[in-house]
């Protein structure tokens, strides 16, 4: 035990660092630090907006996507992001806050995006998730659906899907 402590002293002398003594104050957590870093590296473009209901809590925020091309052009789609203290070991939890007609998003708002579940890795960052979310609106994936009805519709009658989707999403806009 004494040996370990003298190793510590040597390390400290070598670094010639300032003493770490001080009052006990809460430290910024590893998850917060990683999110702070991730946020500075996000590219939003002009189709996406982020908002922070409580600016001091960067672990909870919203993302709205307004696609400028594809079948979902003209709509605004809102998501909540919840990052827990085990980030980046755990992926962020993303939910759609409105009802949407989309093969990969169910009516409860659950999102089926591979990097939000089975393919999440701690080396991925929030930007990767946001890019993935954007992609869902440009290229809805009918072969791996969460909303079976919407997927079937998209697969068989792309035009009908467009109309149906428009109608459903329009309804929702009115409901809001």
């Amino acid at each position, binding site marked *: *035990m004494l*040996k*370990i*402590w003298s*190793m*510590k002293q040597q*390390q400290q002398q070598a670094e010639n*660092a*300032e*003493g*770490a*003594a*001080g*009052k*006990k*104050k*809460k*430290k*910024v*957590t*590893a998850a917060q*630090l*990683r999110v*702070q*870093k991730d*946020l*500075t*590296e*996000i590219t*939003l473009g002009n189709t996406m*907006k*982020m*908002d*922070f209901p409580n*600016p*001091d*809590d*960067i672990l909870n925020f919203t993302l709205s996507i307004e696609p400028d091309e594809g079948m979902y052009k003209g709509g605004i789609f809102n998501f909540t992001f919840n990052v827990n*203290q*085990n980030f*980046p*070991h*755990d992926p962020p939890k993303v939910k759609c806050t409105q009802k949407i007609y989309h093969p*990969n998003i*169910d009516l*409860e708002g*659950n*999102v*089926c995006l*591979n990097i939000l*579940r*089975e393919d*999440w*890795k*701690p*080396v991925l960052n929030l930007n990767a998730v946001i890019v993935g979310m954007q992609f869902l609106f440009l290229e809805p994936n009918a072969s*791996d*659906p*969460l909303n*079976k009805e919407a997927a079937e519709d998209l697969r068989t009658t792309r035009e009908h899907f467009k109309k149906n989707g428009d109608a459903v999403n329009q309804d929702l806009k009115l409901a809001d």
Partner: protein
Amino acid sequence: MNPEPTFATNEQSRWKSLYNVLSKPGPFADEDWVPGQDTIDALESSKILVIGAGGLGCEILKNLALSGFKDIHVIDMDTIDISNLNRQFLFRQADIGKPKAEVAAAFVQKRVKGVTITPYVGKIQDKDEDYYMQFKIIICGLDSIEARRWINSTLISMVDMEDPESLKPLIDGGTEGFKGQARVILPTLSSCIECQLDMHAPRPAVPLCTIATIPRQPQHCIEWAHQIAWQEKRKDDTFDSDDMEHISWVYNAAHERAQQFHIHGVTFQMTQGVVKNIIPAIASTNAVIAASTTSEVLKIATSCNPYLNNYMMYAGEEGVYTYTFEAEKKADCPVCGNLARKMDVDPNMTLGDFIESLGEKAESQLKKPSMRTEEKTLYQRFPPQLEERTRPNLSLKLKELIEDGQEIAVSDSAYTIDFRFRLNFN
């Protein structure tokens, strides 16, 4: 006729081999090490904390008590389940439902004369630094990465140059099936849990779409019941994996779904396993890893032999392979990499001026920093919505935003690492 040895001499002879090891220098012992009574006293007076009283914890408690430690504490929040009994040998059928920490402590204390084991039933997060400060060494047998990260960062933040006793070696063991690992962490000196976080692959998850549309395995049906059906039908109840009624509900829903898809094999036990994320445990793997970690505690507490430096992996699923290596400290580890540097600041300076000064100071040279304290976002450059919300802080004085001695964390897109400063008002 030879007299039968009395009980008392038996008790003393129990430690004979141990005392031999601690009373004679071996070829690998440190030159400065003084064997003998002082070392034996050091062992017996060392207060050890065991985190977790499950598969590894039972082994660890037994091993520590049989290695001569006299003052052991154990902390665990769980209660005993029938499925524990095959390997968690300190528990009996009559103990089902009782707290693991209490039952394990009482059992070992009764079995090994002279040892005191103090249980605490609860979460490690319930305890503060003062609690952890009383121990000499902390040994973990945990099943969650979250808990490991918590104790790791707590022990690292406790290290205080003025007080040698504040550096608490952390011995961590972990098993999964036939695989295991043992490691020695000397907070701030050696590689920590967070340094190797990338190494722990998250548990493979089933794609949500498979669960929602085309289940193929009984586990998929259980996941569906747990994640989708529960949310639909019982939105207002928070799911509790220890609540039997909740598990039964999920089991029934899963069973019904399995029948629809002609899938066999959904059982109550499997339901419990899936929703509680139970890791397959093999008794012997636990024994191997617990033996390895507890002998490190003995070596570190007495200095009798060199300790593990610093990572031993055990792979028993295909023959047996073990490998010991030194995991390296990560320079940009968010927990141990850059501990807070002290920085003297004028409390009347505005945050904007402070940020500008960071760009000029030689030790930081941060041109575009974003920064926060644990509870407050001081200034965040991006995304624009957050920049706008935190911009008013720039004209506030430091003393209006932070307390004297508070730590801030600074990120700058120009650097891959982050910086921590402890701001002292002058």
